[in-house]
C-alpha cells in the first residue's frame, strides 16, 4: 500500500522537489551576500549600546536592496506552501478517486479502506510537513543575519519582531502544524464534497480564514498577557498624534518596552496620573502639540521646544504614562508549541472524521 501511495504521489512529489530545490538555490546563492552585508555593517563585532543603531541601519538599508524583496518573498512562499499542499495534495486524495470512479478499483483490492486511507494520509501528511519545514529551515538559515540584527535591537525596515505575524508563521515549528492542518482540511473537504475543484475552493477559504483569525484573535490569548505602566519619556518610539479639531486629543503607541527586548506588544495607550485611560491633551500641552503636528508630519527634525518629543515631554510632566499589554519575548517557544499543538490537534480531529466518513462513503 505504501508503494501504491508513492506511485500515485509521484507527480506531486516531483513538483514539490523541483520547487523546493529552486527555492534552495535562490537562498543559497543570495545568503552569503546577506551575511557579508551584516559583517560589513560592523554588526558581527559591535559591543554595547551602539549595536542597536547599527542594527537599525542594517535592517533599514536592506529594504532598498534585493534582500528587501527576497525577505518577504521567501517568507511568503512558506505562508503559501501549506495552502498549496492542502489544495493539491489533500483535496484530490479522496475526491479525485470518487470523481474518476477509481475508488471502485482502489477499495476492492485486498486492502481495507481504513488501511488505504491510513497509508495515504501518513505519506501525504509527512511529506507536507517535511516540505514546509524544509522551506522554513532554509529561510531561517538565510535570514539569520536579520534575526541577529533584530536580537541586537533592530526595529526598522526588515527588522521585525519574532512575534510579527509573518515572522511567527514562517519560523520555528508552526509551519509543521499549518501543513498538517491544510492537508487534513483538503482531505476532509474532498471526502465531504466528493468533487475536487469545489473541495479545493472550500479548503482555501477555510484555511485562509483560519490563518487570518489565528494571529488576530487567537494567538494573543494563548497565554494571559502581562501588563506594565511606563513613563512616556522612556518610550523611544512613542508617537504622539494630534487628532480631532483643535488638538484636544492625542494617541500614543509604544513600539518597544525598555528592558523587554523582543516583547510582543498587544496593545498600548496613555493613562493619566490616576491610571485611567485618557485621550484628552492637557491644556498646557495643546499649543506645543499644534506646532508639533505640522513639523512632525513632514518628517523634518523639530526645533527644541516643539515637535513630537516636546509633546511627549509635556505629557510626561502632566503625569501621562503609557499602559502596555504585552507578551514577554521569553514566551516565544511556548507560543510556538501551543499554536502548533492546536493545529496538529485540529488536523488529527479532521483525519479521524475522515476515517469514520470513509467507512460509510459510497463510491
Amino acid at each position, binding site marked *: 500500500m505504501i508503494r501504491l501511495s508513492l506511485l500515485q504521489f509521484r507527480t506531486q512529489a516531483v513538483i514539490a522537489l523541483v520547487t523546493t530545490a529552486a527555492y534552495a538555490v535562490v537562498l543559497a546563492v543570495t545568503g552569503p551576500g546577506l551575511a557579508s552585508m551584516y559583517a560589513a555593517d560592523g554588526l558581527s563585532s559591535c559591543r554595547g549600546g551602539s549595536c542597536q543603531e547599527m542594527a537599525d541601519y542594517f535592517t533599514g538599508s536592506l529594504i532598498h536592496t534585493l534582500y528587501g524583496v527576497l525577505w518577504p518573498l521567501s517568507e511568503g512562499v512558506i505562508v503559501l506552501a501549506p495552502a498549496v499542499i492542502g489544495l493539491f495534495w489533500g483535496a484530490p486524495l479522496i475526491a479525485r478517486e470518487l470523481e474518476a470512479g*477509481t475508488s471502485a478499483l482502489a477499495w476492492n483490492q485486498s486492502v481495507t479502506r481504513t488501511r488505504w486511507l491510513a497509508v495515504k494520509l501518513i505519506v501525504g501528511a509527512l511529506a507536507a510537513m517535511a516540505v514546509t519545514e524544509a522551506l522554513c529551515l532554509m529561510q531561517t538559515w538565510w535570514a539569520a543575519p536579520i534575526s541577529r540584527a533584530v536580537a541586537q535591537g533592530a526595529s526598522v525596515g526588515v527588522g521585525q519582531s519574532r512575534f510579527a505575524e509573518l515572522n511567527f508563521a514562517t519560523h520555528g515549528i508552526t509551519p509543521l502544524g499549518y501543513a498538517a492542518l491544510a492537508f487534513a482540511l483538503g482531505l476532509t473537504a474532498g471526502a465531504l464534497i466528493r468533487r475536487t475543484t469545489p473541495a479545493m475552493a472550500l479548503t482555501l477559504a477555510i484555511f485562509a480564514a483560519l490563518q487570518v483569525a489565528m494571529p488576530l484573535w487567537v494567538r494573543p490569548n494563548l497565554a494571559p498577557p502581562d501588563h506594565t505602566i511606563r513613563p512616556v519619556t522612556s518610550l523611544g518610539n512613542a508617537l504622539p498624534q494630534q487628532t480631532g479639531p483643535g488638538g484636544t486629543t492625542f494617541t500614543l503607541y509604544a513600539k518597544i518596552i525598555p528592558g523587554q527586548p523582543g516583547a510582543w506588544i498587544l496593545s498600548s495607550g496613555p493613562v493619566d496620573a490616576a491610571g485611567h485611560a485618557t485621550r484628552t491633551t492637557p491644556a498646557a500641552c495643546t499649543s506645543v502639540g499644534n506646532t508639533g503636528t505640522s513639523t512632525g508630519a513632514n518628517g523634518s527634525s523639530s526645533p527644541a521646544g516643539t515637535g513630537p518629543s516636546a509633546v511627549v515631554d509635556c505629557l510626561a510632566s502632566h503625569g501621562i504614562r503609557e499602559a502596555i499589554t504585552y507578551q514577554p519575548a521569553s514566551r516565544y517557544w511556548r507560543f510556538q508549541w501551543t499554536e502548533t499543538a492546536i493545529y496538529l490537534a485540529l488536523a488529527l480531529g479532521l483525519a479521524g472524521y475522515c476515517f469514520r466518513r470513509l467507512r460509510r462513503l459510497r463510491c
Partner: protein
Amino acid sequence: MSAVIAASGLSKRYGRTWALRDCTLAIPEGRVTGLVGPNGAGKTTLLRLAVGMVAPTGGTITVLGQRPAAGPAQLARVGFVDQQAPVYARLTVADHLRLGTWLNPGWDDGLARRRIRQLDLDPKRRAGTLSGGQRAQLALTLALAKRPELLILDEPVAALDPLARREFLRSLMEAVAEHEVSVMLSSHLIADLERVCDYLIVLVASQVQVAGEVSALLASHHRLSGPRRDPGSLPASQEVITESHTDRQTNLLIQTDEPVLDPAWAVKPVSLEDLVLAYMSRADDGRPARRPRLGVVS
C-alpha cells in the same frame, strides 16, 4: 446448493429515495448468475452492497458467509468490476499490474501477464489512452488475477461495441472455466446473458420476479396460443405470466412443471428474452391481470 450471496430484507436509501427496498435473494455457488431488470430495479445498488461499497440501510447481506468488505481476507475473496471499468488514467498498464501485486496477497501474476499478452496490450501504455474495451479487459484482469472465489460485474459490457462485448464475455467465460469462480453479473442485454449465464434472476423494483437455472426456466415456460378463453380456466399447475387477447385468439406465457396436455393450445417454446420481458412486464402491472388486454406479448 450453498449461497455465495444471501440477502434478506436488504434495503438501501439515498436521502429520501429507496434504491433498494426489502430485497431477499440467494445467489448459488459455482454458477454464472445473470441479474436482469429494468433501470432503477436496484441492480447496481445490490451489487455495490455485495462488495461493501455501500452499507445497507436495513436488512442483511452476507457474501461467502461474511459481511461484505469485512476485512482484507474477505476483500481478497471477492473481485469486482464496476460499470465504468475504472482504471487510473495516468498509470500505465504495467503500473496497474504492480498495484495488483502490492495490494493482493493472492495475486496471480502469471495469469495477469498472460492475459495482458493475449489481449495484446502494451504494458507501457497509459490506461487513459486505452479504448473502452481494453479498459474493461484491464479491469477484468485485475479482478481475475486477485483469484477471487466470487466475481461480481456490474454492467460490464454495456459501454462496449458488439465486437469488444463478445471478446470480453469470451475471456470471462474462459477464466470462469479455468478457475472455477462463481460469477454474478448484471446486464440489460439479455442476448449476452443468454450466452454466458446458467442461472438467472429477474429483479424488478427490488423484488425477485423469478430465479432459477436457465435451462430449467426455459423448460418450464411455454407460449400457448389458441381460441379465445378465460385464463382462469387453466389447470392450477399452470401459472399465467402474461396474457394477450384478440377477439378470437388468446396468447399466454405460462409457467408449469407439467406437460401441457390441452389439445386446444398450440404450444411453443420461449426464448430467454421472452421470458425476461414477460416477468418484467408482469411486475410492471403489479398483479397478473384477469381482463383482456392487447399486445402485451409480441
